[in-house]
């Protein structure tokens, strides 16, 4: 490797990592948190067969899962201004990613809710607990334990999907790299470099997932 190329890589590492820490990670963290809140609500109205809301939930999941996230980003960022709704790039990305991932996580959580044995609900009823009390204290915690590995996978996928936000002018890691490439003409090395930074982030998350699962297992959440 030439000294020049090495210099570029060393010099750009910090420049790529910085928007990773200040944009990619906050974008992922905020969007995923909101996605989880949406997902729990959407999963619960289906699990509890709440009329009307249940159908709305199915419609939401149908539309969001059936359209590309890139199209959703373009609709919100480039399309909505046409009807007078202007959203800054970062909030637009948060909006799209949380709504998008919310649909996928909702299905994960709904499946997990339905996998909790029926006897758990009946036992709760027999000790006099209300439906909502049983959902909140017995069913949902067990479902989230079951859903945890899948949700962790979704989170890891989301870290990488945030690179699509470059298309709506969010200056995250990937866009920063594109700019450095435009200046230095070293696409191969620099795109591999940014790939390695994503890999680094995801490695940390994978480790955290393992720690999380160990903790949950110590809480007796695995089924006998």
């Amino acid at each position: 490797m030439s000294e020049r190329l090495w210099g570029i890589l060393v010099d750009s590492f910090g420049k790529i990592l910085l928007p990773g820490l200040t944009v990619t990670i906050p974008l992922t963290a905020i969007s995923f948190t909101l996605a989880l809140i949406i997902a729990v609500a959407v999963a619960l109205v289906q699990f509890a067969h709440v009329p009307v809301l249940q159908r709305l939930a199915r419609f939401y999941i149908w539309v969001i899962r059936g359209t590309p996230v890139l199209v959703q980003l373009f609709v919100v960022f480039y399309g909505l201004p046409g009807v007078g709704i202007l959203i800054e790039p970062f909030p637009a990305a948060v909006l799209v990613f949380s709504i998008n991932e919310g649909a996928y996580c909702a299905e994960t959580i709904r499946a997990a809710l339905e996998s909790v044995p029926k006897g758990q609900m009946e036992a709760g009823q027999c000790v006099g607990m209300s439906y909502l009390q049983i959902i909140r204290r017995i069913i949902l915690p067990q479902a989230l334990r079951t859903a945890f590995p899948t949700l962790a996978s979704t989170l890891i996928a989301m870290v990488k999907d945030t690179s699509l936000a470059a298309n709506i002018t969010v200056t995250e890691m990937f866009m920063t790299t594109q700019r450095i490439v435009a200046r230095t003409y070293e696409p191969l090395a620099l795109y591999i470099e940014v790939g390695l930074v994503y890999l680094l982030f995801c490695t940390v998350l994978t480790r955290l997932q393992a720690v999380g699962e160990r903790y949950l297992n110590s809480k007796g959440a695995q089924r006998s």
Partner: protein
Amino acid sequence: MLQIRNLRKSFGDLQVLKSIDLDVNKGDVVAILGPSGSGKTTMLRCLNFLEKSDGGTMLFDDQRVDLARVTHAEANALRRRTGFVFQSYNLFANKTALQNVTEGLIIARKMPRRRAEEIARAALVKVGMDDRADYYPSQLSGGQQQRVAIARAIAADPEIIYFDEPTSALDPELTGEVLAVMRSLAGEGRTMLVVTHEMDFARHAANRVVFMEQGVIVEQNTAEAFFNDPQQPRTKEFLQTYKQRSLL
């Protein structure tokens, strides 16, 4: 204290319970016997509103309910006066043994935590599980789980405890430890309705036996009369099969 009249229940076209009448007095230990599919479990589940009855009335002390039109509030109020022990234990998987017992007291009955824990520990002592209070269900054997489930059912001092084949999922050794707990409860004068295949328990721990088949009560009598002098041909035949296998 419990009077059931004309309890009916169908699953689709299958009539599982055909006009059941049942009376339970305070302190009764009633063993409900009968072949599989006779409706025993369904009857017990109807009594605690885990299944919705198609018709019938219940008189629980002075409280009368129309079983087909029971409201959530009525069902919940009556459930708080009863305990229920399941065949498959159904301990809350995300709670320790102690929390399984306190959960209903603290959450459903709004009891202060400290008081609930005192009661729960006493209940666990009674079933011999106080040394496992902080274990999760997955760390306990089937017999131990069922004993915790019994502690959960008796913690709120229910007026009636329903047992739905409490030992059917257990091997003979574990069955013994659960039956011992149930015998001691019977000895305390608790009112119990026990769906079971344990003839020895029915004969010696119960004071009354109800024999069901195809959704009707074929015969009911004191335990002694039922085993020594069965009246109905079907009951005789049923007891005979146990005798042949030297289980009686």
